[in-house]
């Protein structure tokens, strides 16, 4: 297992896990249907690359959702 962070919270995932696996761990099935976008270590990762992006220890994932703004 390796330790990563999602939205600042610690999460353990298997070594060699993909970004898609981590997101499945963090979001339930219903939440995965919502609109969200992802950055890995402050770089944008498009939806089509979730499966092929392999995580490393101490990676930091941001999962962002739409919210009001000015």
């Amino acid at each position: 297992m390796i330790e990563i962070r999602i939205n600042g919270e610690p999460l353990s995932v298997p070594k060699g896990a993909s970004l898609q696996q981590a997101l499945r761990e963090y979001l339930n099935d219903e939440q995965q249907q919502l609109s969200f976008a992802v950055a890995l270590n402050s770089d944008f990762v498009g939806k089509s690359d979730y499966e092929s992006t392999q995580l490393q220890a101490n990676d930091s994932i941001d999962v962002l959702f739409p919210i009001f703004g000015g």
Partner: protein
Amino acid sequence: MSLNIYGTRLNSRLLIGSALYPSPELMKNAIVASRSQVVTLSLKRQNPQQQGGQVIWNYIQQAVQENQGHLLPNTAGCKSAKEAYTLAQMSREIFQTDWLKLEVIGDDYNLQPDPIELLQATEMLMADGFKVLPYCTDDLVLCQRLYDLGCQVIMPWASPIGTGKGLMNPYNLETIRLRLPDAILILDAGIGKPSDACLAMEMGYDGVLLNSAVALADNPVKMAQAFANALEAGAKGYLAGIMQQRQTAHPSTPTLDTPFWHQG
């Protein structure tokens, strides 16, 4: 009277924010009442267990649909060009738009944009196909540089975000209008009351972006209508050609045949 944003014609010159309203329903009603066709919104981390964000997002979509409008994602909270670029890419994927209200803040006290990071971010984003609407200070040279980078729309502040202080420096704003006659200029931030928006339009600005002035009003729906009317009045006044100020009084009623003249 239409507003042209990167080739898209809009019926309203008002761009409106979706934050700070007492409730999502009131936000939707105020946006609809404003007749604005551009609504700003953002992206944030959220606890997936909380559904609040989704509710707000649903209301924003309803309001935009009702006004046949467009979403304008912002990069609020970003302090570097790199952060703004990443957030912009994330916004583009979610909202399916290349429009971006670019904010890169340089000072936490007055939320003043960082001109150096702003220019750098603009360059990166324009190269990646974004249509950038940069939020900037009322600095003429900065506005010129943004225009030179390809920004067809430039959004100088009236005063710091959320202050409601109105047009702090009308001279600067008028100079920007004068020196960049072909740019689409939208006054963004610091608007407090409808007359502030009207004044900007009378100066020849193309539009106004505001949020707090409507959201924090006692009656946001009524205030949204007031702003819609104020913008229309100011824009019509500008197009009609405002008279020159004069140093001396001139009677508006003819003096010839004045009754009682030289009597008593």
